[in-house]
């Protein structure tokens, strides 16, 4: 099979509203090659996967197989063509067996109607043997009993069994342990040897350097680099991803912090265990961890949204009542949740209404809303953060992600909080707005506000935080202080298995 016979993307563009998700991207995939696709959140990786998978089509450009343009009406078409995307959350049916999940859609039949169990088991045994998975699962085992790594393997086996020739992995290791990840890598290497083309998406640059033959970098929907992996370093890739030196993106004017502000001791909820932490005035405390490590849940525990089972929270030495977001707000805590659309914004109301939501006393007269007062408070904040909208009566649902986030931040700045908890504040935001939010974080910290920054983006934590707490399984597994904060150390402590006993903090 020559190179030109294989799949390629030719000038693909895709636009969502005001966001140009992909802009004239061309990539030729090659059989027997691992192509790493890197880029920040929102760079266009997921959009590209969805186009390859046929979830939606491009606005312009074509997906080709050899010289023939191919159009996918739905995922089934792309599957038939041999393209498979392995998602972070494997799509398996928990109530069916391993065998049925692997052979779904092509189950062997007896007399046309009955399931031929014996044949199915034989076939499954053969597939499991090929992947060296006989020890890990039995054909008749229900998939609901499997762990995330095994589920992922099932999806991979299903893809290969169904004749997948181009297999894309979308952040496959985010929920895997080190050992499971290593086994996945050996499977990927074997697939490569057998001539399968692999697309590998990951934020972990060390993995990529280890595994990939070629690295494609996307930034703001554009392809900015497509070069062999040999000779690439984490620094060079990161620089390509953000488009400038990472150090320039993160400005922290001051690294001084003042007196004790927040004191959390032994905080426990249904999803967070025995968390103790302190934040000083003017300090940025980063919180790192993998998906499901309990970071957002920690934030929800601190602001009194989740029911507190044990522990104390104090602001400036004064205890904060449990289970009351109102008490937390009164104590001076502001919280911008990760899920802006569902947890932070009233989407169908105006910028003004959303920004004034937490300052009823300052925007009312005799219990009635006073528009003039509200404008006096919100307008300067909107201008300061350069919220892009025709006016403050614009419905929030019509704004871009970055501007929506700014509205949430304006809401809290209107309250002049002492502590601000930001959960993934730059998720799904373009690089320009990101830089603005980073600058704002720096400004706020410099003005004496304590900040808890929850983030999955390592450069963000490393660039902005004074200290980083690493979480796994609802507990804090490590505390790293500048300048010992680096990606490898954070990841080491973020892996669920490496979680030490509670109280065993690493200073």
């Amino acid at each position, binding site marked *: 099979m020559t190179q030109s016979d294989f799949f390629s993307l030719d000038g693909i563009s895709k636009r969502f509203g005001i966001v140009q998700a992909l802009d004239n991207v061309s990539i030729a995939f090659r059989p027997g090659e691992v192509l790493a696709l890197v880029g920040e959140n929102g760079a266009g990786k997921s959009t590209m996967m969805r186009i390859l998978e046929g979830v939606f089509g491009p606005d312009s450009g074509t997906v080709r197989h050899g010289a023939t343009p191919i159009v996918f009406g739905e995922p089934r078409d792309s599957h038939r063509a041999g393209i498979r995307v392995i998602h972070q959350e494997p799509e398996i049916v928990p109530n069916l067996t391993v065998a049925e999940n692997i052979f779904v859609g092509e189950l062997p039949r007896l007399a046309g109607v009955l399931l031929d169990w014996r044949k199915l088991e034989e076939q499954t045994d053969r597939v499991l043997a090929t992947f060296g998975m006989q020890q890990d699962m039995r054909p008749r085992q229900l998939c609901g009993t499997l762990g995330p790594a095994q589920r992922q393997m099932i999806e991979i086996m299903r893809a290969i069994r169904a004749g997948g020739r181009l297999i894309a992995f979308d952040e496959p290791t985010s929920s895997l342990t080190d050992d499971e990840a290593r086994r996945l890598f050996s499977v990927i290497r074997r697939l490569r040897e057998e001539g399968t083309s692999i697309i590998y998406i990951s934020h972990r640059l060390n993995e990529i350097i280890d595994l990939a033959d070629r690295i494609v970098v996307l930034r703001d929907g554009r392809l900015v680099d497509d070069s062999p992996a040999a000779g690439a370093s984490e620094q060079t890739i990161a620089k390509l991803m953000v488009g400038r030196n990472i150090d320039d993106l993160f400005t922290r004017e001051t690294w001084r912090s003042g007196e004790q502000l927040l004191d959390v001791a032994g905080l426990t909820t249904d999803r967070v265990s025995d968390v103790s932490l302190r934040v000083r005035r003017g300090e940025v405390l980063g919180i790192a961890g993998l998906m499901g490590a309990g970071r957002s849940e920690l934030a929800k525990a601190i602001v009194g*949204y989740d029911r507190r089972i044990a522990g104390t929270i104090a602001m400036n030495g004064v205890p904060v009542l449990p289970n009351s977001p109102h008490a937390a707000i009164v104590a001076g805590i502001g919280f911008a949740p990760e899920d802006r659309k569902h947890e932070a914004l009233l989407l169908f109301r105006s910028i003004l209404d959303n920004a004034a*939501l*937490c300052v009823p006393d300052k925007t009312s007269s005799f219990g*009635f809303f006073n528009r003039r007062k509200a404008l006096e408070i919100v307008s300067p904040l*909107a201008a300061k953060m350069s919220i892009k909208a025709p006016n403050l009566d614009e419905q929030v649902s019509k704004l871009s992600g970055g501007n929506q986030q700014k509205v949430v931040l304006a809401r809290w700045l209107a309250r002049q909080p002492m502590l601000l908890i930001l959960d993934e504040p730059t998720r799904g935001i373009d690089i320009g707005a990101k830089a603005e939010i980073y600058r704002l974080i720096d400004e706020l910290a410099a003005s004496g506000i304590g900040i808890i920054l929850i983030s999955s983006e390592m450069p963000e934590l490393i660039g902005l935080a004074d200290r980083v707490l690493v979480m796994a399984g609802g507990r804090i597994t490590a505390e790293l202080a500048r300048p010992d904060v680096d990606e490898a150390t954070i990841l080491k402590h973020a892996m669920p298995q490496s979680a030490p006993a509670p109280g065993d903090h690493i200073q």
Partner: protein
Amino acid sequence: MNSLELRASKAQTDARGASARVVERLGVHNISLLVALAILIIIFGSLRGDVFFSSRNLLNIGLGVTILGVLAMSQTVVIVAGGLDIAVGATVGLTTVSTAMAIQATGSPAAGIVAGLVLGGLAGLVNGIIITYGRVNAVIATLGTMAIFRGIAFIMSDGQSIAIFSDTFRFIGIGRILGLPLLVWILVLTAIAFHLFLARSIVGRNIYALGGNPVVARFSGININRYRVGIYIMSGVAAGLAGILLAARTGSGQPVSGSQGLELEAITAAVLGGCALQGGKGTIVGALLGVAIIGVLNNGMILTSVPTFYQLLAKGSLLILAVVIAEYHLNRT
């Protein structure tokens, strides 16, 4: 648009024509309600114009919708908050009985009014607690209490109508001030109060936030449990007021007669008026237009001698039609 222009949209609308301003102020939805109302008036006017347009009949319509008006407005608040109260009709029945009994026992109209409002508030408190702390779906909870409240009304009255002999109290139902029935004045005053409360007060705005997205509301420091209970208490007190008005108009307290089916009409009016059953959307002005449509429809069907049984068909269909239209609009935007 590189920088934010800090002017309000008012400045923009000023540039447009007066008609555009009217549209903006009333809202597209309310204008379509006015059109629907006009169509109904034209239909019944052309069929029975002689009677329909008489001042006596128009006053009848006004009187007829007073009680429904109060309930439609309180129902609007409940629906905007993301709830539903289908026990209001039963609560009205219960409060007419308690008001009549209190007046019979003490001879004091004031005692009757207090009894009606307090019992209505208690009924609402029960609903609020079951829904908020018992975590029961609002429809199921108030379906249950609907039967309970009717039962209590039957037990209290022994199934009988209880006559009210206080002329002072009856004045509320039949008296006139400045040529207009007192009932109509009460509707006007409660309408102004409800409108200011829901559209302008901080509590009202928080109710929109609560119904629009309870998670956001809670993160913003709104005590959503207290709000929910408070809203059902409000609904109960409003039902108590409606019960007082009904008792004053009929001169009696009755467990069922006069209050049956009020919940259907109140919810229909609220939804016609633009309430989204998911919460977060709806206005008092819209609800009043919905009430007017129902009032004209009821009156017109009587004038054109539509049999009672068929009137029920029309009312039920209207509710479903209103919801279908509302859902259609919701999915389009």
